[in-house]
Each structure stands twice: as structure tokens, then as C-alpha cells.
């Protein structure tokens, strides 16, 4: 049941009341107000405001896509402190997929394929260009979402191909949209501390998304939170994204990524679900120019993802076949099972599931 302006605003922290007025009036929140969203103990109050903002945009609809993730390689020249995925060339566990391997991973009927990978030391840009063209030729019905801004930047660092040229050629080959990864946290302090200074910085990351938007390529944005970042750094990150969206306008979805402790152990445990819910809500409230905020169920768990649909999230990503198969270790799961799982996350929260394509065109409303 969405809140309306006439609903009783049961907000327990009176400091939130001016924010509630601003949200209701559609006025943009300031940095200090953003910080308060993270500092107040009134989790329900923050959630209610975010639910109001979400409902105004999308009613009770929640979007999902039949998609799959593909990682061409995990070989990476970087050594980011938070990453469990990357391997050096020749190291145990390193993998390098051929174009044929990648094609074999994408079943007919997959609506969206999401492709990201390591910064490979040897693979030329043309290899990735051929990969996109081959997927597009083999699966014209599949929309290709590929390469983070960090990877596009790496094509420049390694092969001196300007982002505008790289993106134009990839678009020509069949690229439809870009994922939002590689943003991590826009903080010079953390870039040094967590050893990702060899990666596109805030300026460059935003520049590349701006170029993509100018070429008609829609993109997503992310933030990796729940490790050693400060609340101020989170808010600054969100505001930087909001400014970029004002300039170029091509962002579709913001996806807060809850840091997975894995073996990198920057902190002893994953941040609690209450922090995930709060971060999703604060993102919805601060990013007033982003169409969607996503609850990425793989990282926060299905239960928290379902609850996040009351905290401003309007998207749950998708069926993620690859993740499913990885989880189930060799088990051949029927494709309908994953869809049922995603529908359950949405229906459990009494929201209306809407199957979408990569660009948020409605495929079907699954009442």
C-alpha cells in the first residue's frame, strides 16, 4: 500500500520531518540531509519516505529481466583489495573463454546478457569487438549489456583506443547498454587504501558514462559499500552520480553493491541487512533523477531483496542463470525455476512483477 501525501507520516525521528516535506514536494535533498538518512535510528521513517518516492514513479510495480551473466575472463592486471574474482595469468583458477565458449553460454531466448571481466593483459580490443558482433549475430533477440567504464578506460590505457571510438565501435557491433560496475567508491582516500588507483577514477568513470549517454547507450551505476568507507563517502558518491545524471541523463538504474567478505576480509562480516535496506532507501531519496534503484538479490539475499521493495527498490535484477548454476554446482535447473524464484521475491512483498528487457521496455506484467 503506497503512502500518499495524506497518509499519516508516522516518522519517529523529528529531524526527518523537513526531509519528508521536501520529498513530498519533490525538492532535491542536500548532502547534510543525505547524511541524516544514514545516521538516523528511524529506519522505518527513511524507508517510508523512499517508498513514497518509489511509488510516485512506479506505483507497486517491480521490474525483473530474464538474463544471464557472462565473464569472458577473470585474468586481471589489477589487484583491488576487495576483489575475490581476479587472477593473474597462469595462476590457479584463472580462466579465458573463447568466443565459441561465450556463445555456448547464452541460451536462445535470453533477454539480456551482462558481460564483464578482468583487465586482461593481452586480449586486444578487437577480440572483444568480435565477441560482441558474434553474440549479436548468433542471438539477435538477446540485448547485450557489456563492459564497465573501468574496462572501457582500460582499452585506452592498454591499447590507446579512445572511449568514444571504443563505444561507437562496440555499439556498431551490437552493444545495447553498459553495466554500472567499476565505480567502487568515488574516494581518493579509498582508491589508495584499497589499491584501485590503477582504475578509472570518479572523473574518468563519469566522463565515460557521459560519452556513452551521448552516443545513445544507456548505462547503470553502482557503489560498493559495506567495507571501510565512511557515510560521508557514500553520500558524496551518490551526489556525484546525481550531478552526472543531470549532465548526461542516460543512467537507468543505480545498484548498491553490498561488499562480500569472501576471502578478502576487509571487515569481519557482511554489513547487516538493515544497512542494505537503509542504503537502498537513501539512494532512492538522493538520486531523484535516476529512474530505478535495484535490490540485487545475489548480494543481499532473497529475503532482504524482498524487504527492500518496501524501501524504494523498483528492480530486482533478474534470473541470473549463471549465478544459479554456480550456486547449484553442476545441477541442471529448469529455466522456469529461477523465474519462479524471482517472482516469489516480488510477490512476497505484495508488489506487481513486471518482466522487462535491458532497456526497461515492458515485456509482460506478471500479475
Amino acid at each position, binding site marked *: *500500500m503506497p*503512502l500518499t501525501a495524506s497518509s*499519516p507520516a*508516522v516518522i*519517529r525521528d523529528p529531524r526527518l520531518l523537513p526531509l519528508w516535506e521536501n520529498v513530498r514536494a519533490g525538492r532535491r535533498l542536500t548532502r547534510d540531509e543525505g547524511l541524516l538518512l544514514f545516521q538516523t*535510528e528511524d*529506519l*522505518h*521513517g527513511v*524507508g*517510508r519516505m523512499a*517508498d513514497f518516492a518509489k511509488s510516485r514513479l512506479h506505483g507497486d510495480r517491480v521490474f525483473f529481466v530474464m538474463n544471464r551473466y557472462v565473464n569472458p575472463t577473470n585474468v586481471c592486471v589489477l589487484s583491488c583489495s576487495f576483489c575475490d574474482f581476479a587472477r593473474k595469468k597462469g595462476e590457479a583458477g584463472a580462466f579465458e573463454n573463447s568466443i565459441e565458449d561465450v556463445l555456448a553460454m547464452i541460451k536462445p531466448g535470453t533477454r539480456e546478457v551482462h558481460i564483464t571481466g578482468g583487465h586482461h593483459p593481452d586480449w586486444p580490443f578487437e577480440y572483444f569487438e568480435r565477441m560482441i558482433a558474434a553474440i549479436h549475430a548468433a542471438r539477435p533477440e538477446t540485448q547485450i549489456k557489456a563492459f564497465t567504464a573501468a574496462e572501457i578506460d582500460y582499452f585506452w590505457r592498454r591499447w590507446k583506443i579512445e572511449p568514444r571510438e571504443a563505444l561507437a565501435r562496440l555499439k556498431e557491433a551490437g552493444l545495447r547498454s553498459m553495466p554500472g560496475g567499476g565505480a567502487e567508491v568515488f574516494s581518493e582516500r579509498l582508491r589508495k587504501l584499497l589499491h584501485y588507483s590503477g582504475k578509472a577514477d570518479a572523473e574518468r568513470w563519469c566522463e565515460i558514462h557521459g560519452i556513452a549517454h551521448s552516443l545513445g547507450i544507456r548505462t547503470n551505476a553502482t557503489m560498493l559499500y559495506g567495507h571501510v568507507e565512511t557515510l560521508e563517502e557514500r553520500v558524496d558518491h551518490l551526489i556525484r552520480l546525481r550531478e552526472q545524471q543531470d549532465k548526461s541523463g542516460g543512467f537507468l538504474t543505480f545498484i548498491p553493491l553490498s561488499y562480500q567478505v569472501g576471502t578478502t576480509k576487509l571487515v*569481519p*562480516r557482511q*554489513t*547487516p*541487512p*538493515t544497512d542494505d*535496506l537503509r542504503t537502498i532507501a537513501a539512494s532512492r531519496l538522493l538520486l531523484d533523477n535516476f529512474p530505478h534503484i535495484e535490490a540485487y538479490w545475489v548480494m*543481499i*539475499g*532473497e*529475503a*532482504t531483496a*524482498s*524487504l527492500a521493495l*518496501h524501501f524504494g527498490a523498483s528492480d530486482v535484477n533478474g534470473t541470473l542463470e549463471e549465478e544459479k548454476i554456480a550456486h547449484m554446482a553442476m545441477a541442471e535447473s529448469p529455466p522456469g525455476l529461477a523465474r519462479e524464484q524471482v517472482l*516469489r521475491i516480488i510477490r*512476497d*512483498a*505484495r508488489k506487481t512483477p513486471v518482466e522487462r528487457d535491458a532497456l526497461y521496455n515492458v515485456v509482460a506484467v506478471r500479475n
Partner: protein
Amino acid sequence: MLSQIRESAQAGKRLDRAEGLWLLTEAPLLELGSLAQEERFRRIPDKRVTFVIDSNPNYTNVCVTDCQFCAFYRKPGDKEAYTLTVDEVMAKVEAASRHGATTVLLQGGHNPALPLDYYLSLVRETRRRFPGVTPHFFTASEIQTMAQVAGKPVAEVLALLKESGQTTLPGGGAEVLSERVRKRIEPKKGGPAAWLDVHREAHRQGLRSTATMMYGHVEAPEDVLDHLDAIRELQDEFGGFTAFVPWSFKPGNTLLEKWIKHYKGPNAYLRMLAVSRLYLDNFPHVQASWFSEGKRAGQVALHWGADDFGGTLFEENVHAAADYVNKTTVDEVVALIRDAGFTPAQRTTTYEILRTF
């Protein structure tokens, strides 16, 4: 309705059935959580969340009651059927005690082959050998089975258990206290009146107990309200309930699995907790179960009216029989409570604080 309920709660006025039904079926989840949290802090003003170090072993899986929701029991003579000797149970209590447990929640099937003296020995021996452990033994339906097998009234069985050293009873076996539900899923069990009678008699004799509810199968909201009304009325008589503990039915390996594929999710769980906090105005505590609903849902539940995080459950076999397994340690429970924004405190079976972390 929301502001009416809020005013009632603030004034300490008991919620009626219509208000309860609205909360169960219509209330927006965040408003509901906010109301429940206000109520929780009115009752327990500090940010304390308690937990108990405990274990949940079983003495037998032999059962003649054939409940459709149960994956744990075996019929007498089944090759997987087992019944432990008193010494074998004591070995389990010893293991729990060694890990710091102050509570052992012991329960089992309804095994007509066991004499009353077996049960009395379990209590007596636990008290004698492990003075630091509270024997939180035997649910209401087991007490009834003992009474039937021994040919004694329930009151006498309870008196003998008390004389042997028992001070508390676990609240399991209530399922949903509604005749309609009982006929559907547990026709051979004693039903709502029998469960309530055992707890009433226990409270009369000065024993304390918990009340539970297993929801998420065939019950309607009215059945849930029947359940809440019944335990609220009983609590008015003697005040013997320490806490209310709802959990969701797990369909794995049960007869009901054919119709019910999945357990009710986190939205239903938060709603149930918050409603019980608001509706059960005479219950001191509401327990969030990290165990039955998952650690992360359990942490969120602390913001929906719960003030207790349950036990560490070093051993558990009933959910495990439904292929549902979840493990923790004391350190992890402390960390989960703290991460959720509360102050962890270890408690006894009857909710006295032992230490604050």
C-alpha cells in the same frame, strides 16, 4: 485505522479482533514495524536484545500422531526409529553444558512405550548432574502422552515433573490453536484445548512456559487471531508465559509438501512478529528466530518488535529433518545482534540477564 491503533497502543488499551485482523491483512509493513517498535521500546526502554545459550536435542523420534507438517517422526518399528536411554540423553546434556548452555530444550515424539519414570529420570538426572542447566523439557502434547500412558491426570504428571526439578516447559506443539487447522493437519493430536489445558495447569503450579505458533500452512488470518486470543486470555489468568515465538512451517519432506512448496517469506514473518508484539499486550517478550527464518531476516526482525534473538541451538534435528539447517556460535549471535543496532545480553530460560556484552 492506523492512527486509531497507534492511540490505543500509546494508551495501553488492548487491541480488539477487528484491529488485529487489519494489522494481519492490511497494515502497510513499515507502519506496522514502526508501531511495533514503539511498543517494544515502551516495554523495554533500552536497546537490549537477549539470547540464551542452549541446545535442542531429542530423546526419541518415535511417534504415533502422524502430523502432516512433520518430517522428524518415525512410526514405531521403522528402521530409522530411535529412543535414547537416560544416559544417552545425559551425554547430550553434558555436551551442551560443556559449551556453556544454560538451557536444554528437550523434546521428542509421542512414544507410547516410554513409562513416566523415564521422563522423571531425565529431569532428575539433569538437575543432579548439571546444576547449571535448566531442563526446559517436554511440550504439552508429550505431557498428555505421559498422562495417558501412566493413566494419571495431567496435573499429577506436572506435579511429579516439578517435584523432579522441572521449572519451565517449552511452548512447541501449539502449531495454530484453531480446531479447523487441527482437523486438517494434526487430527490425532490433542487440539487447542489440550495444549491450553497443559499450559494453564503448569502456570497454576508455578511453572513458566513459552507460547509458539507455526504458521504458513493451511491457516487463515482468523485462525491466527484465534491463537493469539487464546494465549492472551490464558496469560490473563496466571501470567505464566515468558515469551511468544512464532515461526514459519518448513514443508521439506512432509506430507503437506505436496500442496505447499515454500515456506512463507520474510514479509509474512515480520508482519507476524509485529502483530504479536502489539496484540499480546500481556506477554513480556517476543522472540525473533535467526534459526527458523535466517540470520539476516532475524536481524531485521529486531526492528519489527522482537526483543529476543532465541538460542544458539547447538543441536537441532526437527528443522534439519525438513532439510533446513542453520548454525551459529555465541560470538556470532553477539555480533549479529550488535550489527543490527542492539546491545546483546545473555539470559536464562526465564529471561533473567546473566551478562551484557
